[in-house]
Structures are given as structure tokens and as C-alpha cells.
């Protein structure tokens, strides 16, 4: 059976690094169903590097109707995903609770949580039938222990994902489907474009390893949790933090 990876948020720095990792040396028939939103050009080099192995989809996950259509498209026109990696999120905004942006929070919940629920409902039946599946989400080290101030929206959405992961892990374990998270500390990617440089520099200085994470630090942990070897690991949140957050 070839691996069929559904990766949402695939155009992100982590998504592209992960795709390259998964497809390098992958057998014929391996396919990545890669969702992005208005930025599929970022997948162009991967499409050229791995001809026929990356199928891009332009879907606005903040729109529930478009997510419904995407789910129908997946189930009707694509081979059933064996692996699902859910990466999308709105960039973190460092904001005090008094300035909490409810509209933006609702959009982030659509993108991160509600879309995950819909997509899981769409793809889990086939995984259950196949007695194999890997679901992987990206959380944040902010959900481990005491979160930093001024990140309520981000921490709430990520915590909801954590709840989904634990619940699905228990419910689907008997079907050979594992459901896990990685929880990176601050990762230096385009995702930080709205985060002040001082916060990024301070996080690096305070990290026990003296720097922030990179996609190259996080993707190997993701690849492991997606692997056949990780079949007895489910419901976990794996910190990838350089020691800045320890369970």
C-alpha cells in the first residue's frame, strides 16, 4: 500500500520541509495531497522535484463551506489518505486580553480546529477500514505548563487541538490509527512575521540550547510519529523545545 499524505498548511515552512523529507526516496505511488491558501506557488519547486507526487489544493480553511467542498473532493476524487498532518494556523499575535480580537479568534478556530474536525470525519472511515492511519497535529510548547502572557487566542486554539488529539487517540487506537502532536518551542519561520524581533531574540536567549527551533529540528520528530515504527505511540504531545518546556 502506498502512503497517501494529506497535509494541510502544506505551504508553510514546516509543511514544505516535511514534504521534502517524506518524498525523498519514497516509493512510486506515494502522493502528497497538499493544501494551501492563495500561496500554492510555494509548492512549485516541490512539484518539479517530485513530479506527480504532489497534488496541490487551494482551499480557504476559514470558510466552513469551502472545507466541506474540500472534504467531498478528497473523498470522491483522491485515493484515501493513510496519513493526515494538520499544520494551519494564523500567526501568533502578542496581545493583551483586553485587546482580544474575537473575530480573528473565530477565524483561527475555523482554520485550526473546525477544519480538523471536518477533515478527520472525512478521512477516518477509510483509515478505520484499512486498520491503519496516522494523524499528526502541531501544537505549541505554550500548552506545556505555564503559557506566556498575551497569547490567549493562540493557546486556546492549540489546547482545543490537544483535546481533539487525545479524544481521537483513544477512540481510534483499536483500528490501528494513531493520533499525536508535536509541540515545538518558538520556531523561526515566516509564521513569526507578526512577532516583534525582541520577543524572538529573547526566546532564543532564554532557550537552554541558546536558540530557537527550526523546521529541520521539528520535522524529524514528525516523520517519526508518522512512521510505521511509531505504531504503539498514540495520544502523545511530543515537545521539541531544546529543553525550554519539559513535560
Amino acid at each position, binding site marked *: 500500500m502506498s502512503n497517501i499524505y494529506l497535509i494541510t498548511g502544506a505551504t508553510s515552512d514546516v509543511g514544505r520541509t516535511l514534504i521534502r523529507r517524506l518524498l525523498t526516496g519514497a516509493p512510486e505511488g506515494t502522493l502528497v495531497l497538499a493544501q494551501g491558501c492563495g500561496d500554492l506557488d510555494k509548492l512549485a519547486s516541490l512539484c518539479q522535484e517530485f513530479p506527480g507526487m504532489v497534488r496541490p489544493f487551494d482551499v480557504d480553511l476559514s470558510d466552513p463551506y469551502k472545507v466541506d467542498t474540500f472534504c467531498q473532493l478528497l473523498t470522491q476524487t483522491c485515493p484515501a489518505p493513510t496519513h493526515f498532518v494538520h499544520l494551519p494556523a494564523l500567526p501568533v499575535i502578542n496581545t*493583551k486580553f483586553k485587546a482580544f480580537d474575537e473575530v480573528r479568534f473565530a477565524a483561527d478556530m475555523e482554520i485550526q480546529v473546525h477544519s480538523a474536525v471536518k477533515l478527520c470525519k472525512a478521512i477516518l472511515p477509510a483509515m478505520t477500514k484499512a486498520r491503519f492511519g496516522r494523524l499528526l497535529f502541531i501544537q505549541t510548547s505554550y500548552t506545556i505548563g505555564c503559557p506566556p502572557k498575551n497569547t490567549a487566542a493562540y493557546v486556546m486554539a492549540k489546547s482545543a487541538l490537544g483535546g481533539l488529539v487525545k479524544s481521537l487517540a483513544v477512540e481510534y487506537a483499536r483500528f490501528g490509527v494513531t493520533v499525536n502532536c508535536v509541540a515545538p518551542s518558538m520556531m523561526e519561520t515566516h509564521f513569526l512575521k507578526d512577532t516583534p524581533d525582541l520577543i524572538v531574540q529573547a526566546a532564543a*536567549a532564554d532557550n537552554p540550547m541558546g536558540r530557537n527551533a527550526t523546521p529541520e529540528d521539528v520535522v524529524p520528530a514528525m516523520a517519526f510519529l508518522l512512521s510505521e515504527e511509531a505504531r504503539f505511540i498514540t495520544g502523545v504531545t511530543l515537545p521539541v523545545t531544546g529543553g525550554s518546556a519539559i513535560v
Partner: protein
Amino acid sequence: MTEQAILEAVQEIFRDNFDDDTLVITRDTCADDIEDWDSLEQINLLTAIEKKFSIKFKLADVRNLKNVGDLLDLVGRMV
């Protein structure tokens, strides 16, 4: 820009950041004087000051600030 003008602008930032419209800062005000002034709030203050004065701090420059006076001197050198 005079130090007084910088102080007044910085005081507004402190008042907004700490939700206290009556907060008065002086050159001697330091983290021990404001209960919520921790390392993260310090970063928030500094990023708000960066925005207000269109300047960019380096972490090394702001790590050893002891009080508002040090902060005003630093801003004064950059504007």
C-alpha cells in the same frame, strides 16, 4: 526630542501596558516599583516604544536596563 517629551510618551505606553491611567513614572522607576513589570512585560514595553519612536532595539542593549532613566537615555540616543 527632549527627555521630557520622551518621558511623557513612555509614560503613556506604561499606562496603557499596565492598565493604570494614574501611573506616574520617573527616571528612578524600576521593575520593583510596578508589580506586573516582569521580563515579558518589559519586552512588551520595549516593542511598544520601538513602534512609537520608529526605532529598533537590540536584545543586548536592553538586557541591562536598570530603570526608566536607563531606558530614556537609550531612547534619547536612538531618536
